[in-house]
């Protein structure tokens, strides 16, 4: 009940932020220089052709008019028509979100588990060789350019060892996976398509490894720092001084207290991972949301840019909301 009310107030607080986001994305594509019509029509088009195309996409209307149309479209779930492909943006987007979310969510989940286990281990062995090794390894991971790491993994695991499929696509087309959500692993599981499941898993291996290596460092550092703080806290000392057993100390007094700050950071890292997927998808020809949005950006496809940026912001904001709720559940001191 408390959590529900908390959720509701937070959702209300999101309204102005989302309004701001809508305005900003709208202005972003229009205020900055560059003309999408010229980009699609090519340099040989006449002024009349351009004017006709502008009228077709409503770009000849005054700015406020365009904005109202755009807002009206948003409320009815209409994201407009792609200037490039002429197809509705909404339906193009629908098949792109699944693959990308699958990639990001799996990577984040793996990274969270790794960070928790290694972070707490590292804190309990603070100042020793193992701790230093873990920390330096995490720092290296955090300093690697993800697109380069992807390439190196392809070079080693695909070219060299031959353990992974070629970096093109998400699942072997021979498995005849039918499309449900776009998240191939999920689709394979839902349709009980065994071969497709294995194939999707194989294709996920390298991109997930790339993302995990890149995003695990900040999570690990946070868990380690929090765990160190707890280990050094009076509360933990008191529990230890009262002779509680190691297992009980770890489970009851260290773990939850050390994870309190993780959700907020995980949300930030989620955003970082979304950014990274644009690059990782490019390397692995993932054909996901990132590649689609990138193409929109490069061709100044206004409706695609607006829709993709807006949707990413929406996802991000919702993830922060989830993080807040998880934080409130973990930490009884949060007033809700």
């Amino acid at each position, binding site marked *: 009940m408390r959590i529900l009310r908390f959720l509701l107030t937070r959702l209300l607080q999101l309204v102005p932020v989302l309004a701001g986001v809508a305005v900003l994305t709208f202005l972003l594509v229009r205020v900055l*220089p560059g003309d999408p019509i010229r980009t699609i029509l090519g340099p040989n088009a006449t002024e009349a052709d351009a004017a006709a195309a502008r009228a077709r996409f409503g770009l000849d209307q005054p700015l406020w008019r365009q904005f109202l149309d755009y807002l009206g479209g948003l409320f009815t779930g209409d994201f407009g028509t792609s200037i490039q492909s002429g197809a509705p943006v909404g339906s193009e987007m629908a098949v792109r979100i699944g693959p990308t979310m699958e990639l990001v969510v799996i990577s984040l989940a793996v990274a969270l588990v790794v960070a928790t286990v290694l972070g707490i281990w590292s804190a309990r062995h603070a100042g020793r060789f193992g701790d230093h090794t873990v920390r330096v390894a995490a720092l290296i991971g955090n*300093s690697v*350019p993800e697109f380069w*790491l992807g390439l190196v993994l392809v070079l080693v695991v695909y070219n060299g060892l031959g353990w992974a499929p070629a970096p093109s696509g998400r699942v072997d087309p021979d498995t005849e996976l039918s499309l449900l959500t776009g998240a191939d692993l999920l689709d394979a599981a839902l349709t009980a398509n065994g071969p497709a499941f294995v194939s999707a898993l194989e294709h996920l291996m390298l991109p997930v490894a790339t993302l995990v290596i890149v995003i695990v460092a900040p999570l690990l550092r946070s868990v380690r720092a929090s765990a160190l703080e707890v280990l050094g806290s009076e509360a933990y000392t008191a529990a230890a001084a009262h002779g509680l057993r190691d297992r009980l100390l770890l489970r009851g007094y260290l773990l939850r207290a050390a994870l309190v700050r993780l959700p907020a950071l995980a949300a930030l890292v989620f955003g970082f991972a979304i950014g990274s997927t*644009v*690059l990782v998808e490019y390397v692995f020809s993932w054909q996901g949301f990132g590649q689609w949005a990138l193409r929109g950006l490069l061709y100044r496809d206004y409706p695609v840019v607006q829709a993709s940026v807006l949707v990413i912001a929406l996802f991000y904001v919702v993830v922060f909301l989830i993080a807040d709720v998880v934080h409130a559940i973990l930490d009884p001191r949060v007033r809700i």
Partner: protein
Amino acid sequence: MAEVARVRETGGGGRFASSLITAGSAVLILVVLAALFAPLLSSWGPEQIDPAASLAPPGGAHPLGTDLNGMDVWSRALHAARLDLGIAVAAVAVAVVAGSLVGLVAGYRGGWADDVLMRVLDVFQAFPTFILALAVAALLGGGTANLVAVIALVNAPAYARLVRAEVRSVRELPFVEASRTSGSSSWVVLWRHVLPNSLTPVRVIAPLNCGWAMLTLAGLSFLGLGVPVPTAEWGAMISLGTGDVVAGRWWTSVPPGLFLLICVLGFSLLGEGLQERADSTGR
């Protein structure tokens, strides 16, 4: 309860922090020297084409081989350090100064100006930074100045938030109240007492941020949104070598990435060391 004991030990020590700082600084000095003396360290110019060699493997006249255009990879990778370092440091400097000033004023003044600013920052925070950088860079177009502006823009809000939060806690500390009772004007209080004590976290974050700025820059270039084509830049070099990887030609993309990794690692080590030192001294 040996754990407790060990925790305290490292808390006070900080020898690891010192070695991190030393290692990070050493790496960075090395990179800066390499960038400065790049013309002396390579026999080819960064944009000089060797018509006799395209995609030549390492060895002979080209220590790291050549790329598709017949340009020397070693020379390009060395020269690229100038551009990558320059843009990243300049962008972070702009972001620190602009963000800190805004955060300082908002945090100290409070009131409606603060409220408006926070709402604007909320909107900015609703975008993952790389996505925002990507969008602005794509729409604004490439070029050195634009890249500095883009990277500064996406990073400044974080500094504004950081400094604002710090100012809000520092301004409640007793010494600030003491300064006010001494009859000092708010300008003096802000400049002499609040500001110097609010920048501690900025000093720790900025080096880490430089590394991140380099990765952003390289990422943008990788996607073709960075500097114009023949310019030596790590991200662009890797991008050019993407197709070679599947064919097993590692030398066009691996070396520039390694250079980038080393440079970013320098910043990361430095930042981690500074953070650890700041934590162990309590502020």
